[in-house]
């Protein structure tokens, strides 16, 4: 199990301290507990966080970088906060990273528009293997599920940023309105508005396909 492997690697030196000196164990124990709790928390959300970042950015590496940055920032600045606060804080950091990345891309796109001879290094189709079709036969229902998800991803990606955030946090992450407001850094009323508009737009776009 990946979680236990990472925790064992992390707790090695601290465990040694505990065996050497019983007095120091009481000093290190809160750090151990904090690391264990953070490990469990990150393991529980990392895959969903990656998928949400991937939908927003449409790029695997950018999504991975954003999730990793969010993890590091959470551990560095908010690791000592109560664990109940971690989820909205993590998603707030992640959404900021996603917006930073989107801003960088817009700037790059403007520069590329002025210099058409240059090719962007962050080409979304940089991975040659991504374009290779999978030869393994997919069951028909799995294929239908994949296609439905692709349609949903495209529609979500076309939504305005705040509507996209509100929808993903409410539906995919299962946050209530208050938690979503904390994660988005806005009022609960704004969350309701963004969410309602997102659902309305998606239902209009996906109505026929769904």
């Amino acid at each position: 199990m990946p979680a236990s492997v990472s925790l064992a690697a992390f707790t090695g030196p601290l465990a040694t301290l505990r065996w050497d000196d019983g007095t120091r164990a009481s000093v290190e124990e809160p750090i151990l507990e904090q690391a264990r709790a953070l490990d469990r928390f990150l393991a529980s959300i990392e895959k969903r966080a990656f998928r949400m970042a991937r939908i927003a950015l449409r790029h695997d590496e950018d999504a991975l970088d954003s999730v990793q940055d969010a993890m590091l920032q959470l551990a560095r600045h908010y690791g000592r906060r109560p664990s109940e606060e971690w989820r909205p804080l993590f998603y707030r950091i992640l959404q900021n990273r996603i917006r930073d990345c989107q801003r960088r891309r817009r700037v790059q796109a403007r520069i590329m528009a002025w210099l058409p001879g240059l090719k962007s290094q962050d080409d979304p189709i940089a991975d040659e293997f991504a374009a290779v079709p999978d030869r393994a036969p997919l069951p028909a229902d799995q294929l239908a599920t994949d296609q439905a998800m692709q349609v949903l991803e495209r529609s979500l990606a076309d939504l305005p940023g705040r509507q996209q955030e509100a929808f993903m946090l409410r539906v995919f992450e299962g946050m209530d309105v208050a938690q979503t407001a904390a994660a988005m850094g806005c009022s609960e009323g704004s969350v309701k508005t963004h969410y309602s508009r997102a659902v309305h737009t998606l239902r209009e776009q996906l109505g026929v396909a769904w």
Partner: protein
Amino acid sequence: MSDNFEDKARALFEDSVERLDARTRSKLTQARNRALDEVQKGAARRRWIWAPAGGFAVAAVVAVGIVLSSGRTPPSPGPAALEDLEIVADSENLDLLQDQDVEFYAWLDEQ
């Protein structure tokens, strides 16, 4: 209707999460390990933050000790030293020495 739509979206999303490829899972695990390392480094940094404070405290104690010890009165001289001082400071003895015949003392020394 809205619930059906949201339920379907959630189910599709969860399915795509469960079927993440091994490479992405591995990279996410590595990212998590780096974040956990950051917790360890942060704890070590916090411990070292107290080191300068401890150094300042020791320096302050030493400085206070030096100041207190320098403020003490010097030890009083013994009775023998006081007698010597009186003899040297006694102007009458000096006059007596000047009045004596120095040549007589030089002759006496040669005998």
